[in-house]
């Protein structure tokens, strides 16, 4: 008997554990550590900003404070009740984890805070209550629209983060909509005053009641217009000044919402729309040329996700495969919600170049990341083709059977039937 035949229970358990370790490695995206670290760094900045400040007090101060507390016990109890953190309850949605609320697809979710403030999340919107304090809360709007009503108090402190934007709230009623895919923020202010800051740019805008704030992309121009006026997403935009400039002329900025100034740079939303129409017309080379004139690296870093997607398509159709791959990788890096679609397109790109193993890996990645995603049928059909191409016939037959079961009318039905019909 050899050692191989005498595997102990420990060795068997270790072998099973090895399967789990390999699975974890295979399921990981190439650059997950880099993107995860970048995300952690951003979160830590937020955590640090909202963390309560701590001071070390000398012992005699603490003793004096204790004495005062003992003497004023009854009064303190009364204050204690007031100093409780705000709490909230959710109606219309289940709490996925204690502080994370996802509105249903066909309805709204209602958050009611103990201080009387409310937040209504519209369809499929996602919001995280990051921190609750005695004076308010910090909310993270991950996507969708939130209608917020904060009850004004002398010391209330509410913040709403959306992407790289920070909205400081004192006592207002406003609606904020955030789309992470296009990095678009729109805020309609119905009552009170808001301060909106760009965390990455350091700029700040002051919004007054009846005004709409609109921004696409974190470095793009922001605009302020009347709520009942036409949306300026594609029209002329009012470039926001830097902090220093806004200190000089903040009133003019916020009190003349109708005055429009054309910006020197084309607005990103307009560029995205132009590129969409160029893709529709098949004018792919124009998109690539425009991106090159702006600088490819610059565009991949600063353009909206929609623009990067159009650039990837245009590069693919003009056979600029390297540029297409760069664009899709940028999509995966910058927008987790678009990662499965980008993985599918990377699979298609690899397949068109005859890189079957890479294509199989990307298709599997796309399915693993979004098993119910919009490209799952196409990605699994791609898996079938690539399994055949890499001579994995048994796996292909099993996958074909499952495909026909799951997608009886999918795009890969012909391939699946062909695989199963072969001996």
């Amino acid at each position, binding site marked *: 008997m*050899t050692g*191989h*035949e*005498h*595997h102990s*229970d*420990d*060795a*068997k*358990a*270790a*072998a*099973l*554990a090895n*399967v*789990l*370790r*390999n*699975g*974890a*490695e*295979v*399921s*990981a995206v190439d650059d*997950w*550590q880099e993107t*995860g*670290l970048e*995300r*952690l*760094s951003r*979160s*830590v900045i937020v*955590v*640090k900003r909202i*963390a309560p400040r701590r001071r070390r007090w000398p012992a005699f101060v603490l003793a004096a404070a204790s004495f005062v507390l003992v003497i004023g016990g009854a009064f303190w109890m009364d204050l204690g009740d007031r100093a409780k953190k705000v709490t909230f309850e959710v109606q219309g949605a*289940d*709490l*996925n*984890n204690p502080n994370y609320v996802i509105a249903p697809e066909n309805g709204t979710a209602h958050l009611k805070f103990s201080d009387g403030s409310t937040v209504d999340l519209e369809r499929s919107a996602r919001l995280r209550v990051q921190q609750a304090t005695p004076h308010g809360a910090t909310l993270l709007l991950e996507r969708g629209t939130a209608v917020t009503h904060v009850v004004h108090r002398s010391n209330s402190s509410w913040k709403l983060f959306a992407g790289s934007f920070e909205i400081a709230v004192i006592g207002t009623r406003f609606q904020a909509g955030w789309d992470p895919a296009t990095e678009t923020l729109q805020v309609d202010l119905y009552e009170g005053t808001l301060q909106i800051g760009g965390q990455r740019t350091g700029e700040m805008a002051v919004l007054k009641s009846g005004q709409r704030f609109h921004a696409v992309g974190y470095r793009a121009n922001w605009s302020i217009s009347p709520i009942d006026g036409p949306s300026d997403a594609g029209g002329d935009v009012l470039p926001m000044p830097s902090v220093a400039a806004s200190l000089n002329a903040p009133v003019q900025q916020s009190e003349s919402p109708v005055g429009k100034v054309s910006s020197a740079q084309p607005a990103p939303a307009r560029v995205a729309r132009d590129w969409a129409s160029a893709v529709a017309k098949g004018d792919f080379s124009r998109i690539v040329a425009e991106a090159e004139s702006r600088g490819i690296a610059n565009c991949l870093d600063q353009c909206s996700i929609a623009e990067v997607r159009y650039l990837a398509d245009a590069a693919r159709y003009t056979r600029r495969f390297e540029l297409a791959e760069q664009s899709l990788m940028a999509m995966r890096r910058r927008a*987790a919600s678009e990662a499965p679609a980008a993985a599918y397109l990377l699979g298609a790109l690899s397949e068109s170049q005859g890189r079957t193993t890479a294509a*199989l890996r990307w*298709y*599997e990645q796309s*399915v*693993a*990341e*979004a*098993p*119910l995603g919009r490209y799952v049928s196409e990605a*699994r059909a791609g*898996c079938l083709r690539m*399994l055949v191409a890499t001579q*994995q016939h048994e*796996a292909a037959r*099993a*996958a074909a059977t*499952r495909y026909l079961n799951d997608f009886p009318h999918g795009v890969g039905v012909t391939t699946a039937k062909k695989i199963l019909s072969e001996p």
Partner: protein
Amino acid sequence: MDAKNLDRVALVSATYPTMSTAARPDSQKSNIRPFPKDRFSDAELVVAVGQGDHQALEVIWTRYASAVRSTLFSALGPDHAIEDLIQDVFISFYRCASRLKNPSALKAYLLGSAVRIAAFERRTRGRRSKWLNIFQQYGADATERQLPEVGQADLLSALHRVLDQVSERLRTAFILRYVQDLTIAEIAVAMETSEATAKRDVARGRARVLLLASREPSLCDYLKYLGGGEP
């Protein structure tokens, strides 16, 4: 220390000029190169993070993010929430780094935190799907967690089915011992229990996993192959 390890220490010392701990990060002398943070011990990194040092947090991420990820993957299976949960583990560590009782047990702390967060996620999903199943025949969770079952993925799916049937405590012990290769002492720290209990949980977890694995056809074949006979 054997000769091989001594050679390794000598090589490392020759490659990186080392300093005494006292002269490490807080040395104010400009002619002394700061000690590279990636060579800090776990305890030193924890202290640095507790003082708000982001670079130390990056080093901890680089050192342990993969282990945290594979722990979460082992506990939950392929899941779109894993990246979010990794963030939760590290943010929770960042928040309480200054209050850690035993900073040198950083790995055990992070992995223990990961298994607790995974267990919480499983419980909340279980409750949610229980309610959802009242209204719909098929829960979305089961479908969401499917992998493209290609090649090795079959084995992996079967193993996750097995782990789903094992109690949370025994599953945690199994993952920490065999997937993460922690010692019994580290497992005791991670599970906040005594070493005797941790040792017992590991043994029971292993027995339970192997028993259930022997009932899964694909795993049974795999174990037969390993053992050269009956699993």
